[in-house]
């Protein structure tokens, strides 16, 4: 029965329709729109490369692009490093491991909500919790939200705080590393540090790779944090591309320009993923695949 092609296709049909209607068609249409000028009221006009030419000259786009790249470059490594470190600490026969796992996972479940953004905005406000705590240590209050150089960190911290989703994936991978390897290394006199970098890390490179790609894609799309906590400011210091795309598209209804902007983001994500995939053959090891090629 499982070979019956018609039944199988019948079951997968909703997905085929969904992908065609809600993904593929909008995808193609967005590409077409990026070559047009469209404000919803009058019909779209084909303008060729004009939107893209405008992009090159648009100072706000430059600013937004730089901010986005900085955000991704800070958030992704910090999230992954934290996730791996905590997963490593948790990967031990500890009592209460489930409690800790849930506790660390909770922020990444709730972190995307507007409620948490509101709370974050409050904690980092001038007289908020962070500054109260800093004050106890005799540190001058920091204008987390109003200072151009600090506001980015507020957003980065909000996102690093949500390392839990990557952590549970790392933890599952760590639990699959055979214990015998550590015992053997122990006998050979390898230190814990050496064991971590020579055994653990190489064996979980496929998972590191997976997390790297997913977190990068995710970071590029961050919206709620900067929209709610810093409102893109001050002076556009946290004006991520996603905010710029939103403003252009749904505030000013420059749908053509908005589409062009989102295609730039898409191109960035695709090229970064492509680089990762290309580089993966040098640093990702799949177990079972012995190094025979050399």
């Amino acid at each position, binding site marked *: 029965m499982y070979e019956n092609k018609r039944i199988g296709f019948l079951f997968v049909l909703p997905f085929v329709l969904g*992908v065609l209607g809600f993904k593929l068609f*909008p995808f193609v249409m967005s590409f077409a729109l990026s070559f047009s000028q469209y404000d*919803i009221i009058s019909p779209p006009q084909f303008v060729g490369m004009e939107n893209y030419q405008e992009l090159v000259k648009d100072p706000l786009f430059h600013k937004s692009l730089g901010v986005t790249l900085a955000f991704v470059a800070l958030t992704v490594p910090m999230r992954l490093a934290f996730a791996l470190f905590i997963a490593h600490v948790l990967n031990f026969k500890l009592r209460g491991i489930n409690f800790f796992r849930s506790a660390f996972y909770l922020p990444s479940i709730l972190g995307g*909500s507007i409620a948490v953004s*509101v709370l974050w905005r409050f904690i980092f406000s001038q007289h908020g919790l962070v500054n109260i705590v800093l004050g106890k240590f005799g540190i001058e209050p920091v204008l987390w939200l109003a200072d151009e150089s600090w506001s980015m960190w507020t957003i980065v911290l909000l996102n690093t705080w949500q390392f839990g*989703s990557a952590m549970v994936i790392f933890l599952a991978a760590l639990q699959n590393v055979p214990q015998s390897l550590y015992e053997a290394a122990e006998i050979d006199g390898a230190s814990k540090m050496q064991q971590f970098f020579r055994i653990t890390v190489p064996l979980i490179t496929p998972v590191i790779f997976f997390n790297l790609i*997913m977190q990068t894609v995710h970071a590029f799309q961050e*919206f709620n944090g900067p929209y709610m906590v810093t409102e893109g400011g001050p002076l556009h210091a946290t004006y991520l591309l996603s905010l710029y795309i939103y403003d252009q598209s749904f505030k000013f209804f420059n749908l053509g320009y908005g589409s062009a902007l989102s295609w730039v983001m898409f191109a960035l994500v695709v090229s970064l993923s492509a680089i990762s995939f290309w580089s993966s053959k040098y640093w990702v090891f799949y177990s079972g695949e012995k190094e025979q090629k050399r």
Partner: protein
Amino acid sequence: MSAVLSRETVASNDEAARTLRRERASAGMRYAILIAVGITMLYPMIWLVGASFKSNSEIFSEVGFWPSHFDLTAYAKGWKTSTEYTFATYFLNSFLIIIPRIIVTVISCVLVAYAFARFEFTGKKLLFSIMVGTMMLPHIILRIPQYLMFKEFGWLDTYAPLIVPSAFATDTFFVFMLVQFLRGIPRDMEEAAQIDGCNALQLLWHIIVPLLKPAIISVVVFQFIWTMNDFMGPLIYLSTVEKYPVSLALKMSIGATEEVEWASVIAISVVALLPSIAVFFAAQRHFIEGAASSGIKG
């Protein structure tokens, strides 16, 4: 001979004691790290729960989370909002989106995952790679055309744009998670049932769905929390305040006045998080495993 033996046992006893000591020290280190990180991570949230009972002036001066006296006025004020509706309306709206969405998501994703995991059909490989590809697609790129489509359908300012796409298994993360789970389940039971004359739908209902239960719970929990958190969707598609879900109403409460009434905003934020926290703790064991095994997103 015996002297050599005993010296060896002494040596190994020493060794064992040292290992034990080292392990105890290492466990202690681990606990210390976990507790320190845990407190840093969770304290802000605990503090905020406490803050929601505090008076406005106490909020901005105290590090301790325990309020000097419990004051519920912030809750009452926040719940009433500055609009003509209370948060009861907004919560109801959120559930009017969440519940139908979860139902259609589970049905469509289970069907599609069943097809991918158990059937052969033309174009299966291609479709599967498209599915994995869409998980990596930044969805912001689809927002404008989707908006135009839904406008054409007359769906603006209704919940349809937030629910209907999910009926077509477009939340591919869930399909992927279910496929991974199904692949790990041996087919013996299905084969036996097949010999007994079960058809494909009976198999799905009587064998597959019960086995998939933990994974389905994960889907329900994730979809619940993500839909509760969803902000950009409602922001784009809904324009009538009466139809706002909790996320939009919260945003409104902070944007309405220049002087933010922190006490009531915080109180209502705490309330807004409660459904998600409740669902999280009710199902945590199941769905953290689910998230880890297929692992993505967050």
